[in-house]
């Protein structure tokens, strides 16, 4: 497979080079260094280099790829738009009312919206979409769990839908703004649901042409588009005639594709190249911190040694997170200050600086926990047992994660904790995570609500025989459970913020994880690409306002 891809890429590079040459020959006038043209130009094809996290299914509702929405947002509009800071604005819904203590949402839908296949956007369409997300046949890994409290809905009139939830669920509108819950043609859902994975039909500014697996997804402009969200910079159809999202998994390949002009812009700029991009007068840079849970190492709180909160606190104090993150990101990543990233609504700014690097404190905590004796190798012991923690890592994880692991291992060793890094095959890693057979596990969770703390730390979400949950730390804390549950049920914004602040403070005491960095989405582009932005909801690159300067 690798060989095949390389061949394709080389061929593509040749073609792109030819095109670039042709472009240079025809239009070389009127483009100075900082670009004077400010009136958007119509036309052109934008080629965007994405990383290798290609979704296995382009149905937004069936998508689990952490970078997935980038390929579906051009096609599928969402019910609401999430503005930076957390305000929910109208999009395919003109307005909505919440009643019955947060259990009923009445959506008034926008008139005149048409899907690419001519189907009309109305109350039945929205109901069909909710049912499609819930349908077991969709095999929805994210959308279904994000709307888990959805019970049923009632069509009030052609453009009004009343949605009933089984319990109050305040993040409902936030998650509805994410690309994973984009709206698909009800006609396609009813008549040809098996085709959605290959070629989803939405109402978005771009119409999907073709998905060549392992290679690219291509789109063309929807000329009838007239229902852009308020957060967009213009109205009417998109500027670009065509869009191609090309999967370039190798960091080095993706970056050199940008520099050589094979692609116009790339997602996930490798941190080691960010300074070069910023210093290059022909390139621009754009980044957003993803809301949700920072990249962290979760500590398994359900078994020794991390069942003892002092050992967890000791490890957190032993690790110099700032030095590690600065080194691995070349100063590009922000060190996480707690258990949600700084761009998440209800982020507890007041807790910044609470977590400190303090090796003396680490040693003291371990002494208090009874790990007082030390073996010849410097590893602490208690009742003849060594202080060992097992960390199975998927070898296919990003290189930076392995760097953090290796450096954390070194810091832990100085404190007398032996972290054993293991690189079994991918399948074995996921089996062990499901079975709870690990002491550390790495990951992050991007979502635009502090409800991520319920997803990651509610004891309801510990994986058991019949339920697969995201509480990888296997944290069982009554206080956390109560706070996250109340926060997701309240409709009072101020109270919600207060509850989320309390959980964040509580988690810093409990240390169910070592939070490392707030995961950014760093996009680099050639300067002739204008108006590139993010949909703030996830965030993923947004091409609706994008245009190509000469």
């Amino acid at each position, binding site marked *: 497979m690798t060989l095949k891809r390389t061949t394709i890429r080389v061929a593509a590079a040749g073609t792109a080079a030819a095109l670039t040459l042709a472009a240079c020959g025809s239009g070389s006038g009127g483009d100075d260094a900082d670009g004077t043209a400010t009136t958007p130009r119509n036309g052109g094809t934008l080629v965007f280099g994405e990383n290798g996290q290609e979704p296995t299914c382009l149905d937004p509702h069936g998508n689990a790829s952490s970078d997935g929405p980038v390929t579906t947002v051009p096609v599928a509009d969402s019910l609401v738009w999430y503005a930076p800071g957390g305000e929910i604005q109208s999009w395919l819904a003109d307005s909505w009312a919440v009643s019955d203590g947060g259990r009923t949402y009445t959506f008034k839908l926008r008139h005149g919206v048409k899907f690419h296949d001519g189907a009309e956007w109305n109350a039945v369409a929205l109901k069909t979409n909710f049912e499609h997300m819930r349908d077991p046949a969709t095999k929805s890994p994210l959308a279904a769990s994000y709307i888990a409290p959805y019970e049923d809905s009632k069509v009030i009139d052609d453009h009004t839908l009343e949605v009933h939830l089984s319990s109050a669920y305040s993040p409902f509108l936030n998650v509805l703004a994410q690309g994973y819950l984009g709206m698909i043609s009800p006609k396609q859902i009813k008549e040809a649901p098996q085709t959605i994975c290959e070629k989803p039909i939405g109402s978005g500014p771009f119409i999907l042409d073709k998905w060549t697996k392992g290679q690219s997804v291509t789109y063309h402009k929807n000329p009838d588009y007239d229902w852009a969200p308020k957060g967009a910079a213009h109205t009417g159809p998109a500027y670009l005639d065509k869009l191609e999202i090309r999967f370039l998994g190798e960091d080095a390949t993706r970056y050199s594709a940008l520099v050589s002009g094979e692609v116009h812009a790339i997602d996930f700029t490798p941190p080691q190249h960010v300074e070069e991009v910023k210093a290059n007068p022909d390139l621009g840079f754009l980044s957003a911190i993803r809301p949700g849970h920072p990249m962290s190492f979760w500590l398994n709180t359900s078994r020794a040694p991390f069942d003892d909160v002092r050992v967890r606190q000791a490890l957190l104090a032993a690790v110099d997170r700032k*030095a590690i993150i600065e080194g*691995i990101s070349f100063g590009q990543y922000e060190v996480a200050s707690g258990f949600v990233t700084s761009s998440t609504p209800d982020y507890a700014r007041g807790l910044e600086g609470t977590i400190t690097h303090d090796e003396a404190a680490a040693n003291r905590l371990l002494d208090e926990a009874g790990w007082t004796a030390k073996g010849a190798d410097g590893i602490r012991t208690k009742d003849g047992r060594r202080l060992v923690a097992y960390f199975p890592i998927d070898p296919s994880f990003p290189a930076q994660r392995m760097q953090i692991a*290796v450096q954390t291992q070194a810091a832990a060793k100085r404190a007398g904790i032996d972290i054993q890094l293991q690189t079994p095959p991918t399948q074995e890693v996921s089996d062990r995570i499901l079975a709870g057979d690990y002491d550390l596990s790495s990951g992050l969770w991007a979502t635009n609500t502090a409800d991520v703390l319920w997803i990651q730390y509610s004891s309801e979400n510990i994986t058991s025989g019949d339920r697969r949950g995201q509480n990888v730390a296997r944290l069982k804390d009554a206080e956390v459970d109560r706070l996250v549950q109340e926060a997701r049920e309240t409709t009072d914004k101020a109270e919600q913020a207060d509850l989320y602040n309390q959980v964040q403070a509580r988690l810093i005491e409990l240390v169910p994880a070592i939070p490392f960095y707030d995961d950014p989405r760093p996009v680099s582009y050639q300067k002739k690409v204008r108006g590139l932005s993010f949909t703030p909801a996830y965030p993923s690159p947004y091409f609706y306002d994008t245009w190509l300067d000469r």
Partner: protein
Amino acid sequence: MRRIRPGVWLAALVLALLVLAAALPYLFTGQDPLTVDSGATLRPPSAEHLLGTDENGRDVFSRIVYGTRASLLLGFGAIAIALAAGGLLGVAAGLGNRFVENLIMRLSDVGLAFPELLLALVVITVAGGGTTNAVLAIGVANIPNYARVVRAQTLSIRRSTYVEAARALGLSGPRVVFRHVLPNAVKPVLILATIGVGTALVAGSALSFLGLGTPPPEPEWGSMLSTARAFISRAWWYGVFPGAAITLTVISVTVVGRALRLRSEGRTW
């Protein structure tokens, strides 16, 4: 005494040093290859770090020195496996009846139909990664080559006058095979193997490069090269020196192997 070219001496010296480094790495460096320094990542070569540091602040020179063992093991170990198994199968095919010969040779045809690295990947997929499995994988992938050459040798030796003579003297079958056929059939192949070591080393590095060989944090040249690739624009030393180590080793093994071959053919070194 025929004159030995200085290039061959040099290559032999390099090999001797490499073997020494594999056996007693601490003779060459006082630094620990696993010591992490978060504050000194990707530092250029200096007096403190002769060949600079890697992405975790580890000393590249000591990682190359300590990586010699795993890297040479991949090269020599794999060929030893291929030689042993291929030798036995080749002799069996050369001496066995039509059925045995056909079975072994058709299997080796199937093996030869796949590129060496692809076959190694199949073994890794089944058995999992790690240094030992990588040695095994490359060894297995090389068996068909050696089986084929040994069989051809065996066929000619079988009809040679000294085997006929041994038979005529009434020596037992196994004795003829192990005292007369096997040593003579394998000797020319041994020289072929010295060249094989070079390619096996490269294949082993390729497996580690793909993340399937020696697991981190243990040093190995191929995996160092693989990781270094991401940082090549910032830290040339990290990729260049492990690459140079691989190149130097392969060239040395090849030069010495070639000299041995020429000598066995009765030509000048």
